Structures are given as structure tokens and as C-alpha cells.
């Protein structure tokens, strides 16, 4: 499609040449002829150019749309996405009619009523009836569009169904951290931004004074969700603004530090199904960032895998709770967990027998004083 560029060049050059050539003509034919006719030179040429622009522009619009259509996103993979898409194209249809109608009238009148010697323009300063009509028509159309938009918007923004799969997604410079409630209690534990510690496997600040946190696991490259079941995203950011964008699902919601947001949707086409439908064996759903967040903004990619329940469960089984990773790297961490929960937390420790409880307690004192420093 270098043709596109070529075509553009030709259009622009064509216009330039056409104007220049006609000018030569006009000037060659002695200025008097055209100068006497209109108060400014080239009036006729410019009149004609409106029609040329109208025709070339209309062809260009239709042709460019047809050639671009192939690259639009495939049909939305969520019911609400298909709803907003059909509304988008409905609105777009109306607007396209208005676009062509108004531009046609504008360009056509410009050409039709170009300066003619001796012609006197019509003194037509107002017409209340006409004005009333064309105030009322857009008002009615807008009312319909607002109503349609309002209905979809309220529906999309309603609370997530109770049976939704809850996934937390947190934006950071420059990537995402996805957190699941774990396979024991399937419940997201508390978090606290002061507990975030990149060096010790806790990038999302999971708070282990809440026992619901113990089995939570995270992933920084993939999100797996079950097909056909609502997904409730709990969205947050830990440094600057980000925005969760899942183009194929028509999902977008900002991630705001200090203010959790949410979005729910139902992915009803699995990744496999999309691979078959698009004929692209490497197809993947992707999550991108759409709120400028710094140098790496353009590359905050996360894969979204939509699959059946068995596959999601199998994947979850393979994920290691964050607590296990932390305890593996730093057994003394156990001392930071409230005493009453330690026994339960030990279930997540890989080498239970090796931990010397006295060291752990001393370690606790040290750790605490360190953390207060």
C-alpha cells in the first residue's frame, strides 16, 4: 500500500498543477478578461475546485473506508462490546449522512453561487420557520442518541454480578501486576501501598495481616479468565495514572493511585475460538495502557487468555502463592505475620522444618526495627 502514499502525492501535486496551469492560462489570456469579471482573480477556477474537491473527497472517503475496514478490530468478544459497536455504527451511519449532506450543500452552494457579473445576491437575513425546523431536528436526533447511550452506559456501569470472577489488575511503570484470590479461599486479601516491596516479591503490597491474602498469587505477564463467565476487574495503580485497555473486549478504565476503580465484562469468545475465527494461530487478547505514564507507556503489554474452566483451574494450580515465594526467599518473613496467623501462614512455607522459631522471633525484632527506620 505504498500506493496510498503515491496517491496522496498525486492528489496534492494534481491540485497544485491544476491551479498553477489554470493560472498560467488566465494570466496568459491577459489579466483584463478575468479581472474585470470578478473582484479577485481565479474566481471561476476556485468555484470549480469546490466541485472537484467534493467529488474527489467523496471518492476518497468511500475508497479509504473500504480499504481500511479490513484492519478494524474483529467483532467484539463481549456482549457489551457488541452492543456499543452496533450503536457506534448506527450513530456513525447517521453522522455520515449528515457529513455528506452538509459538505455537499456547502461546496455545491459555493460553486453554484459564485460571483456573476451583474447578479445581485438575495437579501435574506432570517427566516424563523426555517431556523426553528433546523433547531428542532438535531435536538430530536440528539435526544434519541442520548437515550441509547444512556441505556448502554448504565447497563455497562452497573454492579458486577455476584458470581463474577474477581481479578485485580494493578498498573505500574511499566507493566501490569495481576492478582488472584488464590485457590484455597478465592478471595483477594487486603493490600497497603506501604508494604510494596519489589525486591522481596511483593510488588502489589499484599497485606499478610489479612489471612485472605495468604493464598493470593500474582502474575506479571498473563491474565487467565474463564470464558462465558463475568469478569470483575479491580483496578488500581501504584505510581502514576494508567488505564486498562482491552481492545477486543471494548474495555477501558483508568487505574488511579489512591482510588481503586472497577470494570466488569463477560468474555464470551475463548482465545482458541478467536484463533479459529481470525485464522491467526498466534492470536492473543492483549491488555494495553492508554493513559500516558512515562517512557515505557507504549509497551505495557499483558496477555489475556480466555479459556474454559478446566484450563483456568489448571493454570491457577501452577501459580505459586506470593507468600510461598516470599518465605522461600526470606524465611524470617514469618515473623512479620501476626502471631495468631503464623501457624496458618506456615502452610505456605516451603521448608517448614528448617525454620528455627527462636531465630524467627529475634528476626522479628530486627525486622520490625528495620522497617521502622
Amino acid at each position, binding site marked *: 500500500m505504498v500506493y496510498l502514499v503515491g496517491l496522496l502525492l498525486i492528489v496534492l501535486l494534481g491540485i497544485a498543477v491544476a491551479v498553477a496551469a489554470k493560472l498560467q492560462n488566465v494570466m496568459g489570456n491577459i489579466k483584463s478578461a478575468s479581472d474585470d469579471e470578478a473582484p479577485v482573480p481565479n474566481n471561476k477556477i*476556485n468555484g470549480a475546485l469546490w466541485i472537484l*474537491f467534493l467529488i474527489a473527497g467523496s471518492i476518497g472517503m468511500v475508497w479509504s473506508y473500504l480499504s481500511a475496514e479490513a484492519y478494524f478490530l474483529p467483532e467484539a468478544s463481549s456482549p457489551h462490546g457488541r452492543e456499543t459497536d452496533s450503536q457506534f455504527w448506527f*450513530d456513525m451511519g447517521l453522522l455520515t449522512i449528515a457529513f455528506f449532506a452538509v459538505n455537499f450543500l456547502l461546496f455545491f*452552494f459555493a460553486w453554484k*453561487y459564485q460571483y456573476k457579473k451583474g447578479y445581485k445576491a438575495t437579501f435574506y437575513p*432570517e427566516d424563523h420557520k426555517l431556523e426553528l425546523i433546523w433547531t428542532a431536528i438535531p435536538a430530536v436526533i440528539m435526544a434519541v442518541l442520548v437515550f441509547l447511550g444512556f441505556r448502554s452506559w448504565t447497563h455497562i456501569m452497573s454492579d458486577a454480578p455476584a458470581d463474577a470472577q474477581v481479578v485485580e489488575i494493578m498498573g505500574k511503570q511499566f507493566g501490569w501486576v495481576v492478582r488472584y484470590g488464590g485457590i484455597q479461599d478465592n478471595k483477594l486479601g487486603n493490600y497497603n501501598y506501604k508494604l510494596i516491596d519489589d525486591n522481596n516479591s511483593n510488588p502489589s503490597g499484599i497485606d499478610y495481616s489479612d489471612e485472605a491474602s495468604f493464598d493470593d498469587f500474582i502474575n506479571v505477564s498473563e491474565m487467565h479468565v474463564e470464558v462465558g463467565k463475568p469478569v470483575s476487574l479491580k483496578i488500581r495503580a*501504584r*505510581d502514576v495514572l494508567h488505564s486498562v485497555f482491552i481492545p477486543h473486549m471494548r474495555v477501558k478504565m483508568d487505574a488511579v493511585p489512591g482510588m481503586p*476503580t472497577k470494570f466488569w465484562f463477560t468474555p464470551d469468545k475463548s482465545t482458541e475460538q478467536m484463533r479459529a475465527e481470525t485464522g491467526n494461530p498466534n492470536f492473543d487478547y492483549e491488555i494495553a495502557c492508554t493513559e500516558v505514564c512515562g517512557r515505557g507507556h507504549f509497551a505495557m503489554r499483558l496477555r489475556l487468555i480466555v479459556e474454559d474452566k478446566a484450563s483456568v483451574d489448571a493454570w491457577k494450580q501452577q501459580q505459586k502463592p506470593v507468600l510461598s515465594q516470599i518465605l522461600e526467599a526470606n524465611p524470617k518473613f514469618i515473623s512479620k505475620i501476626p502471631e495468631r496467623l503464623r501457624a496458618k501462614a506456615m502452610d505456605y512455607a516451603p521448608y517448614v522444618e528448617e525454620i528455627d522459631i527462636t531465630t524467627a522471633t529475634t528476626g522479628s525484632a530486627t525486622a520490625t526495627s528495620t522497617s521502622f527506620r
Partner: protein
Amino acid sequence: MSVVEANLEHDVHAHDEHEHHEELNFWRKYIFSEDHKVIAKQYMITGIFWAIIGAAMSVVFRLQLGFPGANLSWLKPFLGKWITETGAIDPNFYLALVTMHGTIMVFFVLTAGLSGTFSNFLIPLQVGARDMASGFLNMLSFWFFFVSSVLMFISIFLETGPAAGGWVIYPPLSALPQAHMGSEMGMTLWLLSMAIFIMSSLLGSLNYVTTIINLRTRGMTFTRLPLTIWAFMITAILGIISFPVLLSAALLLIFDRHFGTSFYLSEIYINGEALPNVGGSPILFQHLFWFLGHPEVYIVLLPALGITSEIIATNSRKPIFGYRAMIASLMAIAFLAFIVWAHHMFVTGMNPFLGSIFMFLTLIIAVPSAVKAFNYITTLWRGNIVFTPAMLFSIGLVSLFVSGGLTGIILGNAALDIQLHDTYFVVAHFHIVMGAASAFGFFAGIYHWFPKMFGRMLNNTMGQIHFWLTFAGVYLIFMPMHYIGIAGFPRRYYQFTAFDFAKSFTDMNMFISVAAILTFFAQFIFLWNFFYSIFKGKVAPANPWKSNTLEWTTPVNVGHGNWVGEIPAVYRWPYDYSKPGAPDDFIPQNVPHSQTLESNFPHENAYIAQEKEIEAQNYNDQFAAH
């Protein structure tokens, strides 16, 4: 006669300080001038300077987007270390470029450049005043703008680069120097520059409103004001109400950046450190920002629409259709402009109910906008149209205003905005409806009033070529961007290689870049025409476009004080073009009805009785000796 009493009390202010007319020295005449015409030219030249820089920046980032991976080492002499060893643009610098392009174009070119030039130039000339209400504040306004420009210009050359968080400078990115290179000294200068810019804008706006209300000449009632003046006045009021809110937003951000407050910061962990700030809200900034940001769109656009109204009526040789409807729709748009700001924030997580309200209010704007478009078209209908370059740009503006405005109906719809927010669809929308349309207003204004500004004519043919290349160029650049937006491409991306869904459209992006570069170079036709004609253009006649408004009753080279002798009185509205029965196809505002008996409508004969009254009025001639 409402004018009568409005103008009665002002002789107190009509000092005779100007009555001695010795030549001012060079500095007072051209640099620290208090003459509105000189100040207008200062704004215009500064605006053009910034427009070149802003447009050149867009060419650089279009190179990156259209030709990713191309070797741009040849830019090293200009951009230095921002071009990496491999000849690529540094991603930080890419963000700096888009940020500065936005800031420069929105504030320095289309706010200061457009309003600053034409409000300053036209208000006194069209309402019939010797100068602005306060020449000194007017001078101050320009020089504040100049200082603000200098600060912004310096920031481009900083080691860490200029501000780079997008022109909306959302915190926390803009608040934390550790978050981004552009949030260091560049952002400090940005905020400082904008604070000063806002003061400049306020001084200017207050002056415009005061002048329009107080210094209209005899007989110039509000319903006889040209639509340009109406547009400038409403724009100035918008600015007066909304810019202070941006100032407050900027001040709070300065506090967050330098004095440890937490207005916009909460629960942040960055660079291995949890910050102590809690309780603030980044969303608060967005509310404050867009409370200016949305009216700002109209601050940029309304003057262009005012200019267009005047030019289309003049060159169609017809009265503007629906003069009162035009004023009413300007007012409606301006009022609505204040209560739609959160449509920029549908997906920030604000209450969905608020989203519904803002969607409703936003879509209402389509109604007055449609009225304006229809009125323009009807003005062309059965006209006798003269295609001066100004007229071409005005018709082009209407086309862009409609084409870009229509997609606003999509984006104002909260449900549809979910997918399209922050994609190229938005970029296409606002560049057409606000960027290009307002720029066309700027061009139209320059082509139309150049003869009054410099006493010389621009070359018409070059102006026409400039128009067609620019008009085609704008559509070729921004129409394809809609497709890219529908395909989900996010804006402010350095490149699209990281995502599978954004791998297509490489040719389209190349096409857009080529169109942008060609359109950029087409502007040099204008620049050459402009600067050449200032010195060598054909000497202008007194009223080259056969226009009705008062500025054309001044001498070709307008001196200090605008009119030699008395300021003309005004007897009629400015749109008596092609009036039935009249010998000419225009009747200037200063021609009394008693002299046009052949073309008066029956009700207009009643005005003849008022002429004496108008002439007897005390008017605000600042030069008159008492």
C-alpha cells in the same frame, strides 16, 4: 436607545492625555507600544513564530510514527542527544514533542495568537474606539505573554527536556520528578510559564470586555455589533471565568511538587520508595484542568467562528443569515461549555451517574453548533460569492467544523467513549474541529485584514493555492486517523510494535506522515506571501472587500487613534449587503438611513428620526479635548 445611556457617563475617563501628537520614540512605538494595532501585530508575529515551532515538532513525531525505525541521524544537528546512536528518536523526547506541540498550539498559537491578534486589532476598529480601554494593561498583557513564551522556549533546551506528560499534564506523572524526565525542570518551567500566560490572558480578556461594553461609538448598539465582536466578547468572558481555575490547578500542582502537599497525591510507591502522601486525588486535578480545558476549546474556536461569520457575509455579498440566532448560539455554546467538562473523564472511574449527566449536556451542544453550520450554508445560498483567500478559508472552516464536530457526538456518548477514549479517533476529532478549524480562522483573518494591518495586499493567487493545499492536506492527515482510532490504536504511543492488535496500518501511518509533511511545507507559501507583502505588496485600497464594518472607514495606513477627526457614528447593522433597491451591493454602518431612502424597509424609516439623537450623543473619544 440603550446605547444612549450606556455611553453617557464616560467623559470622566476621556482624558486628553493623547492630544499632543508628537512622534513617540522607537521603543514606545514598536516595542512597548500601547497602540492596539501594534500589540495585535506583536501577538500575530509571536503566534506565527510558535506555530512554526509547533508544526515542526509535529513533523518530527510524524516521522517517528510514519517511518518507525528510519534512520534520523540527519536530525542530530538540531536535536542532539535526543537522537540515539542508532538514529531513533528517544521515547522520552517523543513524549516531550507531543506535549509541547499540544501546549504550544492550544495556548500560544490558537489562544494568544488568534484572540490576541484579532481581538486586539478588531475590537477598537469595529466598535469605533480610539484604542483599548487600557492601553497600558494591553501592553502588559502582551509582555506577560512574551515572558511566558520565553520561559517555555527555554524549557525546550533543558538537559532533561521540556514537560512531557501530555499537554494535560495529569499528576501524579507531572508531580513526581522521579516518575519521568519531563517532570523535572521542564515541568517547573511549564507551570511557571502557564501561570504567567494566564495572567496575560486575563489582562487581555478584561480589556476586551471593558472596551466592547464602554467604548462603542455613537449608535453602536449591541445589536449592531459585528459578529466578530460578539464572538470576541463571549470568548473573553469564557477566559475570565475559566482561566483562573487552571491557575488554581497549576498552583496546587506547584505546591505538590515543591512544598510537600498532597492535593493530587495518594498512596504512591515509586522508585523503590513509598511516598508519605495520602488523601489527595489525581482526579481532582482533572476536574480543575478540564473546567478550563473544555471552555478552552471554545476560547480557541469561537473567535474563528466570529471571523468566519464576518468574512462569509462580506464575500457572499449577503447579510449573515440569522444574526440573532448566531449570537444566541454563541451564548448557548459558551454557557454549555462550562458544564460539560467531565466528558473528558468518562473512564476515570467517576460516578457513572455523573457520566450520564455529562453525556446529556454534551450532546446538547450539537444543537447550537448545527444552527451555526446551517446559518453559514444559508448565507452562501443565492449569494454572489467572491473567492478571496479569506473566503476560501472561511468556507473550509465551516466544512472542518461540521466534519470534526460530528464525531464529537460519538465521543460525547459515554458508552461509545469507553472504546474510543484516548485513541486516534479522539486525535482526529479534535484536530479537525478545534485545531484545523481555528487555524483556518486565523488564516482567514490574516488574509482578510492584512490590508488594514499593513496597508498592502497579499497575493490572492498564492493565497488560493495555499488554501487548497492546506484544505486537502488537513483532510488527508486527519480523516485516516479515524480509521486508526476505530482499530483501537492508543494515542501518545512512541511506536506500535509492542502489540499485535496495533501492528496493522503501517502504510496508513506513513500516508498520514507524508500528508503532514507536505502540508507543513505548503505553509511556507503563506509565510513567503506574508512577509513579502508586508514590504512589497500592492498598496491596498481603502475598502478592498467592499465591507460594511467601521474599520474600513479609517485611512489605509491607520494612525494612532484610528480615525482622523471624529469617530464615525453608526446607524445600521453591519450586514446590509445586496439590499434591494440600493445602488451598491453594500451599505457601510456609518451611512445613515436618511441617505438610503431608496433601499430602506418601512420600519427603517423610523430610524431616521433617531439620527440626530445619535449624532448628539456624547461618545467615548479618548482623544477629544474637553
